[in-house]
């Protein structure tokens, strides 16, 4: 392509603008890393001297520790429940017909566009009289509603990619409907299920608003704890927590992304 002086100048300006925008996007994520290793007792950027004191503070504080474990537990249980429920429903919607199939298919995506604050209040309003606020069960149910759309999206995409003649072949070769599902369909959509489970785990682990409202006094998620500390006690320990949080999230997302790419290729 010909490039006149005007085009070259435009390209330079475009490149600089893009670089600035990218810095704007990535900066907040990167920032917590240097802050977390600061040696001062308050947030200072750039940090004067390096220290791991905030990580030690995080790992030694029983409140942070129990919040972390609680979050991990909820996320794991949410991943299991929403993966089982979501995969079964995707199978039903993709390979069968039942009254209300289209309604359910639309409804399951609704939590994606429902403001979390409204859902959080509704769940609190609903759970409080049942004594579910602050309980593991309450959390898992609430987070499953948020996580199950991702599972359904991933597994439905995986199911759409399965050649229907494979399932027909299995039937033809003598497999019962249930064995077709077990021996052919599920193994073929396994990457989609795995990606869905990872997304579900992260959806729960990162979830803030509902956790904020339905956390109890002793059962707090890590996000609720961060939220509180940001409001009342802004110390670099949050940066250390954030770093751990970001690293875990990004690592799992990378895995989920690789797995779901595998789905598309298969």
């Amino acid at each position, binding site marked *: 392509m010909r490039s006149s002086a005007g085009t070259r100048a435009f390209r330079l300006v475009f490149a600089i603008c893009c670089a600035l925008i990218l810095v704007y996007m990535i900066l*907040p994520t990167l920032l917590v890393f240097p802050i977390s290793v600061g040696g001062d007792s308050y947030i200072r950027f750039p940090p004067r001297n390096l220290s791991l004191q905030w990580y030690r503070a995080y790992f030694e504080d029983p409140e942070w520790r129990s919040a972390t474990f609680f979050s991990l537990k909820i996320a794991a249980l949410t991943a299991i429940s929403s993966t089982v429920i979501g995969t079964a429903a995707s199978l*039903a919607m993709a390979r069968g017909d039942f009254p209300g199939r289209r309604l359910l298919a*639309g*409804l399951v995506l609704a939590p994606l566009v429902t*403001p979390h604050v409204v859902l959080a*209040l509704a769940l609190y309003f609903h759970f409080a009289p049942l004594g579910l606020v602050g309980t593991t069960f309450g959390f898992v149910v609430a987070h499953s509603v948020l996580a199950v759309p991702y599972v359904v999206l991933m597994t439905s995409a995986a199911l759409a990619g399965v050649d229907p003649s494979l399932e027909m072949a299995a039937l033809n070769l003598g497999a019962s409907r249930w064995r077709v*599902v077990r021996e052919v369909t599920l193994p073929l959509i396994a990457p989609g299920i795995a990606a869905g489970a990872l997304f579900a785990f992260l959806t729960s682990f*990162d979830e803030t608003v509902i956790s904020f409202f339905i956390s109890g006094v002793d059962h707090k998620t890590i996000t609720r704890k*961060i939220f509180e500390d*940001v409001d009342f006690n802004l110390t670099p320990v949050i940066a250390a927590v954030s770093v751990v949080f970001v690293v875990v999230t990004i690592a799992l997302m990378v895995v989920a992304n690789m797995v779901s790419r595998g789905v598309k290729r298969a």
Partner: protein
Amino acid sequence: MSERHIRGGLSKTTAALIALPLALLMLVAFVWPLVGFVSTSVLDPAPTLAHYEKLFTSALYMRVLASTVVTAFVVTVAALVLGYPIAILMSRLRGPAAWIVTTCVLVPLWTPVLVRTYAWIIILQRQGIVNDALISLGMIGRPLTMLYTTGAVVVAMTQVLMPFMILPIQSSLRSIPKELPQAAHGLGASHFRVFANVTWPLSLPGVMAGCLMVFIIALGFYITPAILGGPRAQTISTLISQQAFELLNWPFASAISVVLLVLTLGIAAVFRRMLRVEGMSLHA
């Protein structure tokens, strides 16, 4: 023949049975709570429209409503203006450069919103990075108050929501056949005219999807306004939580929630064909 009649894999009973847990979950933890919660807006203490009347006749609340919509709109426009060039970059680049740009888009998306909001506090506070930089450059004498303003909310929310704009635009840019812009160039069109007449119109589905997604999420956004906005920059969602948890006025909180739900779910329902949910997490 088509796949239409080949699909019949599961019997009606089996299908209904294995879809049942999801139906129950949605019913018990989504439909029922929402219906129960929003019905208090017209039923508490007795059948009444008083809560809506209060909401729609109060200048204060209407201002919050209007400013939320305006903020969401500004964030959407800002995300489009800043995100479009990045989407173009993502769709054109190859090799390590492409990898860097993609990382810069995806890593923020995967950074919990809470962490990003925390980072914005550090950037924008009185002794924050921006103030320090401006003072040491001698551009200002005293630190500026940036935190707890609508401006701070817009800046942070735009950053938080930009990936939702970039990804759909990028995917519709990618689906434009490469020959098309080249052919337009070959026919003598300038870069600007190729963009205006070929690239931009063909990317519109992605633009629409991105704008809808960002606008819908921005309308109901809670974390960033709650932390960065402070009392002066209230939004519908912070108003709802304040009414419910600080003032314990649940019916009123419910009435505001209905307005927010009608806005978000309404937009989503009307434009559902244009909404494309990419495989990504949208926790707000």
